[in-house]
């Protein structure tokens, strides 16, 4: 365990060194990402200039939802998202995966964490500020239990996303590419930015139970606001557990078919 932790720190360092090679570029990309988040915020503000509630959600609550979505989204993009979605298919296609699976560490560790995105790590800090601001506007009106649940459900959201991204990436063992599919999923996860109250009843049901994108930010936010039913909590945990199990099985199946051919 400690070895993996050391390895992770090392990967962070390498990532920082690689991305800081072009220093002006590094800071420009970060400011671009921060500006993008601020402009999105401006967009929500513009919406709430016209209405005071979206479904059941007030502006402050939407702010929490928005910050939570970006918190999860950033952690995902700092760590496993691009590694699995874009890097792994390239490794499979070129046959370079060989050099990774012969290392004395778990192959999934290397496949999902090889390139740590330090650019996103730095853009992540203002996002934490935004979360702090949202909590401040909500007057910190939550109990310890609710805060704990919030943390737990964020971990749950990350596990859920990890499972889906892993499943999509694993497809590339057979097709040698899945970048297009990964991109569609990227677009789809944006549903998590908005309160699901915006959808008609069918689609609301769909995004909570069938393709539970609600797990990304809606469920954690509701937990913090004390508006989560125990049933939905159980469902969120169970759905993630099941999906993670399937994803890991699928991954081992894919790894077995890997033939290390290169072009």
């Amino acid at each position, binding site marked *: 365990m400690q070895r993996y932790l050391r390895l992770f720190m090392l990967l962070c360092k390498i990532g920082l060194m690689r991305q800081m090679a072009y220093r002006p*570029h590094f800071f420009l990309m970060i400011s*671009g990402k921060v500006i*993008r988040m601020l*402009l999105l915020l401006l*967009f929500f503000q513009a919406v709430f200039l016209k209405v005071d509630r979206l479904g059941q959600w007030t502006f402050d609550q939407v702010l929490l939802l928005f910050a939570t979505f970006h918190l999860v989204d950033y952690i995902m993009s700092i760590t496993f998202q691009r590694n699995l979605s874009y890097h792994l298919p390239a490794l499979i296609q070129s046959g370079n995966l060989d050099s990774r699976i012969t290392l004395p560490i778990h192959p999934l560790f290397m496949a999902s964490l090889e390139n740590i995105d330090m650019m996103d790590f730095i853009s992540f800090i203002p996002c934490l500020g935004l979360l702090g601001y949202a909590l401040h506007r909500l007057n910190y009106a939550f109990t310890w239990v609710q805060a704990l649940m919030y943390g737990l459900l964020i971990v749950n959201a990350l596990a859920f996303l990890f499972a889906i991204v892993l499943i999509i990436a694993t497809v590339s063992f057979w097709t040698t590419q899945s970048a297009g599919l990964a991109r569609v999923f990227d677009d789809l996860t944006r549903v998590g930015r908005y309160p699901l109250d915006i959808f008609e009843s069918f689609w609301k049901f769909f995004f909570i139970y069938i393709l539970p994108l609600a797990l990304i930010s809606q469920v954690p936010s509701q937990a913090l606001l004390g508006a989560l039913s125990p049933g939905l909590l159980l469902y969120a945990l169970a759905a993630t557990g099941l999906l993670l199990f399937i994803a890991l099985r699928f991954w081992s199946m894919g790894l077995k078919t890997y033939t290390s051919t290169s072009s």
Partner: protein
Amino acid sequence: MMRKALLIFRLAFMERTAYRVNFMLQVAGGILSILIVVFLWLAVYRSSGRSELGGYTLAEMITYLLGAGLINSFLLTTAENPETSQAIQDGTLSNLLLQPFNPYWVWLLRDLAGKLFLGVIGLAGYAIVAFLLREELVLAPDPLRLVFFGAALTVAVLLQFLTFESLSLLAFWVENTSGFRFTMRVIMEVAGGAIIPLSFFPALVQKIFALLPFPYLVYFPMRIYLNKIELAEVLPDLIRAAVWAAGLAGLNAVLWKRGLRRYTAMGD
């Protein structure tokens, strides 16, 4: 000359079609995003209980979102002119300079071909969405407005190319221009009106945006289409957009000339 230009255009177009599946998926992703936004606005109008927000009825709003999304899909989404900057950085510009055709025009033609391709695919995708929402749309206005709409789009295409090209040409001086282009795209999308009509923003923000050329990219053509601007005001605005384009073209010419003098054909 014309034949050469057409050939470059055709080749670039064919190159694009080689990766059809990826583009299809990209368009599918774009449609999903637009549907989500349409749902969002349906909910906003529902919860506001009003029939008009920011000067837009629900039908006008949905038309705006689809139109802006379509313009966005070929104007902004994948077009950041990376080729120029890449050729300067890796030295392949040397090869291009030896050819009997100015590389700058090649890049312009290739950019236009890319936009046409994305436009065709985008049109196919949006046709499906528009059909689903056909009850909610504002249909074509009078022919004169359509002509102006087309003219505004043409200027927008050039304006967009010239903006990114001036950043891409900076590669003569700096090592990596993608940070500039990324930041520009982010600002352009919002300030251009690709996300929502600019009239929804606070007054101060609107004033700042109006100082930039970006509102001519999406907001202006859509306002022409949706009857949100008097016909008499269209022409002066169109001229203003053209002046912006001419100014940027001048800047491009200077950058290109000075840059070439600095160019050292460094590469690997």
